[in-house]
């Protein structure tokens, strides 16, 4: 990366991080809501561990994977809403008058997602372990969990950027939340794939990439170092990141031409 590009990314990253940290209304729901659902689901579905074939005797350990995914959903909303606000206020148009490169803009905007992803991952993991969840992969596994969580958060953040650039509307980005919520629920979120008895639901969950992202977290929490599941999880996250960046770059070019 050249010095100029580094400066561009650095300035925008700083702005993105500060903007995220200065908005408790963005951070608080992303921390509180997933932990609340974790507490409720762990209490309500504790007896699921009595089902034959359930992989652990701690539902908390099994469910601890879910907040990382819910946190990533908040990243879609936050990164998308921030960019949409820049479009609505005309800030993006002013940036378009500078020699700023598109890739620098997108990378800089994702810096806020990286910071939020780190805060989320550390909080979820700490709360989960304090509450009694197991971590079969040990301290090294904790680092990989944080790395996977941040990768997924940034990957989902690119989808938020794409939505903002396509629509130019914060309200439209917010409207994506239910859609992502549906994708999360139609996965192996509450029970392992093998225990999903309803055939059509099992088929949808088996085809849903979110099930394998959850599987990567669970492999570290429940089983230890399962390299196949980790590779699948990181592979899917990086694929989403690549597709999201290409789509967002294309949408950015279209928007800049339009303006």
């Amino acid at each position: 990366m050249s010095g100029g590009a580094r400066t561009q990314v650095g300035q925008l990253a700083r702005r993105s991080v500060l903007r995220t940290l200065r908005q408790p209304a963005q951070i608080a729901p992303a921390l509180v809501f997933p932990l609340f659902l974790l507490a409720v689901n762990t209490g309500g579905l504790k007896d699921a561990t009595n089902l034959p074939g359930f992989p652990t005797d701690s539902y908390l350990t099994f469910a601890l994977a879910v907040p990382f995914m819910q946190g990533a959903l908040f990243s879609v909303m936050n990164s998308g809403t921030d960019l949409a606000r820049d479009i609505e206020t005309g800030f993006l148009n002013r940036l378009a008058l500078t020699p700023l490169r598109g890739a620098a803009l997108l990378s800089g905007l994702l810096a806020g997602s990286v910071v939020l992803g780190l805060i989320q991952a550390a909080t979820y993991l700490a709360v989960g372990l304090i509450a009694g969840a197991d971590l079969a992969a040990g301290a090294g596994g904790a680092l990989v969990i944080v790395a996977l969580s941040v990768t997924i958060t940034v990957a989902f953040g690119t989808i938020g950027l794409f939505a903002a650039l396509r629509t130019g509307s914060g309200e439209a980005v917010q409207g994506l939340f239910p859609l992502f919520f549906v994708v999360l629920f139609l996965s192996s979120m509450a029970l392992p794939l093998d225990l999903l008895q309803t055939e059509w639901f099992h088929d949808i969950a088996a085809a849903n990439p979110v099930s394998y992202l959850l599987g990567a977290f669970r492999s570290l929490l429940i089983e230890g170092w399962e390299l196949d599941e980790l590779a699948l999880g990181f592979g899917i996250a990086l694929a989403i990141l690549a597709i999201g960046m290409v789509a967002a770059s294309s949408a950015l070019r279209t928007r800049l031409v339009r303006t």
Partner: protein
Amino acid sequence: MSPRPASGWTVARAVAWRSIHNFLSNPAFLAPGILFPLFFFVSFAGGLSAIGDVPGFGFPSGYTAFQFVFVLLQSAAFGGVFTGFGIARDFETGFARRYLLAASSRGGIVAGYTLAALARAAITWAVLTAVALVAGMQVDGGGLDVFGLYALAVAVNLAATMWAAGVAMRVRSIQGGPLMQFPVFLVLFLAPVYVPLDLLSGWIHTVASVNPATALLESGRGFISGQPELVALAFGCGLALAALFALWARGGLRRAEAAG
């Protein structure tokens, strides 16, 4: 000769008609109210059906009916919350102030919103019930039991509408949305959502044991399985909450009147 002032009923009908027309003619208002409960029903009944095999579960009508009752009562509550959003929007656009100026009976305004909330919930219930029956839901209760179940849902809808209306008329902005929504979400999910109360343990059992939503849920599940239980307690809780939040809504109306 000055025209005779409209009665409370006339005001209520006019407000209800406008609110119903608004959400029926705008898919952005109608769709979430119908799609969210359907989505929860599909996710819970489809994705968690194995929970019905947990030792000690023993709900005679099956897991689909068990979850149907939760989603029915949830949709009743959210029918009220979404109407609260509409009230807040009316204040933001200034329309509610015109209501306050024009209506001789201001209680009729709240009554109108309440009727609209009920109509909204009834549409959702019709769709939800049809989908559940097509999905093979087992209903072991008789006609009177089914009537009891929907009567409980009406009480929940009334209570939630009064709560949301009270918030909306105090905050008078859609920014009060989370305040209307989150407590309802909290109360519903701190009840026995996935398994009966007996199978819960620890802090969630303690909280669920004193949560009025538990009585409503357990009674509703008793109705659908043809083994009514906690009927007096459930209706007592539902109507007491509705009465309590009606006072809250009346206070909100007074605040809105004072704000001008």
